[in-house]
């Protein structure tokens, strides 16, 4: 907040306006309020004191005048006459007159012994009976005192009869013509009579009131804010009452019996002093503080409202003024800030340039200066761009040159390498050609030996072929012979079978011959065993013959295969012979070619040496070329950096 505030001219200006406007306002208002407060407070107090004083005087004067009245009446001839005549009824017109004019409630006439001789108002009764002589005890007390002092007295307010309004009594002695106490004249004044004085609301405004309090703190008059009947019943012990009962007068603020903040003026009636009574009363005048000082509150409110209006006016003025000054400065500040960031494009508003004061001049100068600066930067930017593009073209050409030079260089080195390789190859070729011609000679020798070997092989194979043919013939012969053997075996088998039958028949014959034929039976048995043996033997022979036959046929097959193989071998040997012949021919040709290669290679090598030297010198030239191009590139690079820097500088600005 403070940062924001400290950065804003407008806020500062408005604040200063407010401070300048507010300080005198607050001082003036405060002083006015302060002084008015004391004046108003004093005024209210004075007014209240005056009221209290007035009421006090009225009450005292009332009592005083009634006292005088009493004394006058007690000393009047008329009364004395009537006393001496004992015509009490004749007093009535006079008494009634007094009661009506001076507001007494009743007038009593007591004898010098204190007996009730007469009362003006017969309506004072106890119940529905007429008042008896000593019914009101107060009267006895009064008469006793009068007889003792023979001085007029006033009693405090008292509830003299149940059901009656409280009242106070005034009594004065009545002397006879010859002197000496003759009777006592008593006036009864109702509390309501005094109440009318205190309740008089002249100058009391809304909440003002006056009341009386006795020394016993009981109220001696009705209160404005309480029900009637508090008289002699409600006790009030506010500080003001205490002060007043101590015979002090003054004014103070306090909380009264209603528990309300009030301004309270208090005083002692001074009855003891002024009327010689044995009692005294405090008189209190109160008014609610809020009402007493209402003027002050109103004044405060007015000051506050005026202040607020002034505040708004000042703020408005401040705002307008600061707007006039701060707006252009803000706008200028924003543009300069943008310039700081490189943006020159913001134009100064027209209405600010039109102003004729210093700010207008500043704005105009700023606008034209910015304009010139923009143009210069634009030109600078364009030039730098042109420069940059030219440089890049040059750079491209240089790099092309460089790359072509390097390519040339690398090509040259490749060519050189190749030439070297060719040289080596041709040397190798010469060596190989010599080797080939030597090999060819060896090969010729070997091929001749091969040819001889092939011929020998052929002869061997032919011999094998003849042998094979002989084997085949023998085998066929063997096969035929084995067949004859089989026939022989069959014949033998037949013979064996027949021998067997013969032996059986012999046995039969032997059996028929009985005992004589026994020997013959044995012979027959032997014949049979011979037959069996011969059969067994033929079987063995037959098995062997079978094996022989199988072996023979396998041999026949093998012989056939052997014959075929031998034929193939002959063919292969012939092919080998042919191949060796061709090989010899080829070898001879190779040998000749190798000799030619050797010769041409030697020529080639001298040519290659010359080529190599030429390549060397080209290479040197190319290297120099390359270095030159590199220097050129460096120079272009420097130039480009320069142009780039220039363009960067100009490109920072937005124009």
């Amino acid at each position, binding site marked *: 907040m403070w940062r924001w505030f400290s950065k804003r001219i407008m806020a500062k200006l408005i604040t200063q306006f407010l401070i300048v406007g507010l300080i005198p306002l607050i001082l003036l208002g405060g002083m006015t309020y302060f002084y008015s407060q004391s004046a108003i407070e004093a005024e209210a107090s004075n007014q209240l004191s005056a009221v209290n004083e007035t009421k006090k005087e009225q009450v005292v004067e009332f009592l005083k005048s009634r006292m005088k009245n009493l004394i006058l009446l007690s000393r009047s001839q008329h009364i004395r006459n009537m006393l001496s005549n004992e015509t009490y009824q004749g007093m009535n017109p006079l008494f009634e007159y007094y009661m009506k004019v001076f507001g007494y409630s009743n007038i009593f006439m007591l004898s010098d012994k204190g007996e009730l001789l007469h009362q003006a108002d017969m309506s004072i009764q106890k119940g529905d009976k007429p008042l008896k002589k000593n019914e009101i005890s107060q009267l006895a007390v009064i008469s006793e005192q009068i007889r003792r002092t023979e001085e007029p007295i006033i009693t405090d307010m008292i509830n003299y009869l149940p059901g009656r309004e409280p009242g106070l009594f005034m009594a004065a002695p009545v002397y006879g013509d010859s002197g000496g106490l003759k009777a006592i004249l008593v006036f009864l004044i109702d509390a309501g009579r005094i109440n009318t004085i205190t309740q008089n609301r002249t100058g009391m405004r809304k909440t003002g009131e006056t009341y009386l309090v006795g020394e016993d703190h009981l109220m001696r008059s009705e209160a404005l804010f309480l029900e009637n009947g508090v008289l002699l019943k409600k006790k009030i012990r506010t500080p003001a009452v205490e002060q007043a009962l101590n015979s002090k007068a003054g004014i103070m603020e306090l909380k009264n019996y209603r528990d309300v903040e009030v301004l309270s003026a208090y005083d002692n009636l001074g009855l003891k002093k002024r009327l010689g009574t044995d009692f005294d009363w405090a008189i209190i005048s109160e008014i609610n503080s809020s009402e007493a000082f209402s003027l002050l509150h109103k004044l405060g409110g007015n000051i506050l409202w005026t202040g607020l209006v002034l505040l708004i006016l000042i703020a408005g003025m401040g705002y307008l003024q600061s707007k006039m000054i701060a707006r252009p400065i803000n706008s200028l500040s924003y543009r300069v800030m943008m310039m700081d960031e490189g943006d020159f494009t913001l134009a100064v508003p027209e209405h600010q340039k039109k102003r004729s004061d210093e700010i207008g001049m500043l704005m105009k100068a700023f606008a034209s200066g910015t304009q010139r600066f923009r143009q210069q930067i634009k030109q600078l930017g364009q030039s730098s761009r042109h420069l940059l593009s030219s440089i890049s073209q040059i750079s491209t050409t240089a790099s092309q040159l460089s790359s072509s030079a390097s390519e040339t260089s690398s090509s040259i080195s490749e060519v050189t390498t190749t030439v070297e390789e060719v040289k080596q190859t041709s040397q190798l070729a010469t060596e190989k050609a010599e080797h080939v011609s030597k090999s060819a000679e060896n090969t010729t020798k070997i091929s001749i030996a091969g040819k001889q070997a092939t011929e020998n092989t052929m002869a061997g194979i032919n011999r094998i072929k003849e042998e094979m043919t002989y084997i085949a013939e023998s085998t066929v012969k063997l096969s035929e012979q084995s067949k004859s053997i089989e026939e022989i075996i069959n014949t033998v088998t037949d013979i064996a*079978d*027949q021998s*067997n*039958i013969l*032996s*059986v*028949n012999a*046995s*039969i014959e032997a*059996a028929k011959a009985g005992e004589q034929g026994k020997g013959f*039976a044995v012979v*027959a*048995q032997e014949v*049979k065993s011979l037959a069996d043996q011969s059969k067994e033997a033929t079987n063995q022979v037959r098995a062997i013959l079978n094996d022989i036959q199988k072996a023979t046929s396998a041999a026949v097959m093998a012989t056939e295969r052997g014959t075929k193989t031998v034929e193939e071998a002959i063919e292969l040997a012939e092919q080998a012979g042919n191949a060796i012949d061709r090989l010899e021919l080829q070898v001879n040709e190779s040998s000749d070619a190798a000799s030619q290669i050797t010769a041409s290679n030697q020529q080639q090598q001298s040519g290659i040496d010359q080529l190599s030297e030429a390549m060397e010198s080209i290479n040197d030239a190319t290297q120099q070329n390359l270095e030159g191009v590199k220097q050129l590139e460096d120079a272009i690079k420097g130039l480009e950096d320069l142009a780039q820097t220039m363009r960067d500088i100009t490109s920072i600005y937005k124009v």
Partner: protein
Amino acid sequence: MPEKDILKARADMLAKPNQAAFEKHAIKTVGFLLADEIYAIELRFVREVLPLGPLTFIPGIPEYIPGVINVRGEIISVIDLKRLFELSADEQPDNPYVLILSDPKMAFGILADQILGVREISTDDLHPSLPTFTGSRADYLKGIDEAGNIVLDGNRLLKDENLVINQNNY
């Protein structure tokens, strides 16, 4: 007398069982093969054995008589026991043999696949016929020896009226 003892031992060693006792129960038989089974018949009923010559077929006679042969001028009828016993007759041997059976009243030949030779069999060792031997075969059976060879009763064969063919039978 050690020499005497040695001789005695030798005599014991070489001694043979009582032939006479054995012979009481022994019979001589001729063994022959019929459909891979070995049959035997008492030697005393066999007149001779000979390879089968040319058979002359006689029409109107039972199937088990394939025909008649001429034996040195005597006409002998031949019985095929394989057919008579209802044995498998699928294979006919290349050169069959004929056993001529004879008694004073009767003479006929029986075909045999092969002649095995003369053999002695103890009649004590003969077992009665097995339940598997059924049909006509059982009637001509003498017994079965320990080796499982079937011994035919030659007497019954020769005496059997069923085998005699005359016009009355038809």
